[in-house]
């Protein structure tokens, strides 16, 4: 795929905005939810909210894997981290997520061995490097990450490593969208669907959106122009009165997705109910290791019981933010008790969290104030 030059990008954006304005009736209020943290960041980085017509509102959804990981999972991860013979392998994003009583960063300062990895396959090296330790990999993430981690699970099994385990809390995007719509809370007039997730699962798993809920949606790539083209696609669907799963990321997302990755996921994981931070249990929205790989499931092989109850941070509105019910700056803690340097909720921790994005890009003082 050829990248647009800045000038081409500018021209394309102008043309798209022109069409968007044509299709939007003044005074009409449309709320579109982006379901991917990378989209949330791109929308801010490129200042999309200021160029869209008033009335088209972009709302962030449950699209940041760290943010939707629930408190019980964090507490379990911390319990493993405190074991003398355990090395936690994790993506860097997880370090500062507050558990009920501590965080991985805090555990690290108290002597826990925590290894930040950049690609899941590093756990193989760690397993060989520390034969007398148990490596516990914090396996979180949506479909994109699941495929890569699934391949890692297989590689660990094939290598016969007996000291590498997975603490799995993978989340699936389509069931979460269904749950948001079933609850009928907050107005959602369309979904901007995540490009990377869709590379894996394709278009079909979203088919229930137009068919059962009469909601337009569009798969989008990650720069501002690609998000704009998805907004336009959704407006066009509304204009025609015929809804579908649009795809403006054709060059990358195939209709049927990545079949090899899907097959791998089927082999390594079974679908299960899962708990999402602040939202609760969503049926069939998570994955656990299948029977054939159960010997790599740390919860089965090294069972633990948490001796204290898991508590959501007091006053934190992450759950409502993740469902698009409130904007981050409507949380009473936002920018006051809760900032990226002293995060209370997960959405303020991850670079892709909505609260962190709102804070970083200048909403701390109540709005993007820039005098022209």
């Amino acid at each position, binding site marked *: 795929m050829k990248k647009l030059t800045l000038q081409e990008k500018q021209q394309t954006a102008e043309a798209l905005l022109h069409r968007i304005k044509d299709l939007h009736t003044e005074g009409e209020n449309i709320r579109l939810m982006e379901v991917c943290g990378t989209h949330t960041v791109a929308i801010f980085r490129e200042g999309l909210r200021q160029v869209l017509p008033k009335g088209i509102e972009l709302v962030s959804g449950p699209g940041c894997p760290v943010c939707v990981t629930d408190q019980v999972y964090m507490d379990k991860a911390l319990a493993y981290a405190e074991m003398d013979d355990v090395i936690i392998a994790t993506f860097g994003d997880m370090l500062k997520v507050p558990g009920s009583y501590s965080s991985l960063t805090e555990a690290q300062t108290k002597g826990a061995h925590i290894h930040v990895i*950049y690609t899941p396959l590093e756990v193989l090296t760690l397993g060989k490097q520390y034969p007398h330790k148990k490596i516990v990999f914090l396996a979180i993430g949506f479909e*994109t990450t699941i495929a890569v981690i699934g391949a890692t699970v297989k590689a660990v099994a094939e290598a016969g490593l007996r000291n590498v385990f997975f603490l799995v809390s993978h989340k699936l995007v389509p069931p979460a969208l269904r749950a948001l719509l079933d609850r009928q809370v907050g107005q959602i007039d369309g979904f901007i669907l995540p490009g990377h997730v869709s590379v894996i699962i394709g278009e079909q798993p979203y088919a229930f959106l137009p068919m059962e809920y009469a909601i337009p949606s569009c798969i989008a790539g990650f720069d501002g122009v690609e998000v704009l083209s998805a907004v336009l696609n959704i407006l066009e669907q509304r204009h025609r009165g015929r809804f579908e799963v649009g795809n403006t990321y054709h060059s990358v997302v195939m209709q049927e997705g990545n079949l090899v990755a899907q097959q791998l996921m089927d082999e390594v994981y079974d679908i299960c109910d899962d708990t999402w931070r602040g939202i609760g249990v969503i049926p069939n929205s998570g994955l656990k290791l299948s029977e054939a790989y159960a010997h790599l499931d740390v919860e089965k092989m090294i069972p633990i019981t948490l001796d204290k109850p898991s508590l959501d941070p007091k006053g934190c509105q992450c759950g409502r933010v993740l469902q698009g019910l409130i904007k981050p700056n409507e949380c009473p803690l936002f920018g006051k008790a809760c900032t990226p340097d002293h995060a209370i909720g997960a959405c303020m921790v991850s670079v892709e969290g909505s609260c962190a994005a709102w804070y970083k*890009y200048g909403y701390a003082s109540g709005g993007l104030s820039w005098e022209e």
Partner: protein
Amino acid sequence: MERIRLVHGNGGRFSHELTERFILKYFTNDLLAPLHDGAQFSVSAGRMAFSTDSYVVQPPFFPGGNIGKLAVCGTVNDLVMNGAIPQYLSCSLILEEGLPFDELDDILATMRDMAEQANIQIVTGDTKVVKKGEVDKIYINTAGVGMIPENIHIGPSYVKPNMDIILSGSIGDHSIAVMGQRFGLELSENIKTDCAPLNHMIQAVLSKVGPQVALLRDPTRGGLGTVLKEIADQSQVGIKIHQSKLIIHDEVQSVCDILGYDPLYLANEGKVVLIVEPSVTDEVLNILHSFPEGREASHIGSTLDKNLGKVGMQTSIGGMRLIDLLGEDQVPRIC
């Protein structure tokens, strides 16, 4: 393979050997030659700039350079940012027991070449050796002095509204080159550090239009975003820049896209932000363009008398993005 041993730092015969085998081989000049406790030299009357920096990059070798290149260019450039003409540097080496001789050779040869390129002399120094594991191969401290010509007054207090902001080239190259090496990413060979001494280029600017230059800053750690926000705060002006004027090489942008880095916050080692009177902008650009390290220079924005303390970037699609200081270190995203 010969390696550095602890005895090389004990001050005795082995230390002498180390000095002769390495230091005198690469750094030879009249001021260093006496091997006294310091260097003695005369200075002209006027104002002097004095700067120091320690270099601890990991890994010490990366595409386009090594820690020695940083150690010379970094301190030379810090002097340049004061408007000074760099003259003399000190060089303090802290070596890890076990460092291969040939790696030290490479680093010192690079320092010699960079000193020559920057037309400065390394006139005093020190070498310590510490036990394996106490440092990561090699740390270097350099300090430097240079004289500031008359009529040159550089600093945040000279920045006023309605001045032009010029950036001397692309951003992000250095960070991505080092990170690629650190994490063993197989990156395009076009990704190299931009590390270079900027004194000749900046002297060419200052000798022509020095009094019209208010500020020089190198966007190193924290990147361009952090530096602009610091200027807006320190000088109490607003700053508006245009995304379309920033140069980010395709390869750098691609790595950023994959890892979730923001090029605005990546370190550069051979770039400079100049804030100048609008009357000289074109002339400054012409001068910068005539140097290889300034060939991609562009006028990226201006200072304002409103939005004081804020930095706004007009995005290529017409939106406005506020730019803050770098917070936490950027970490790769996970999906």
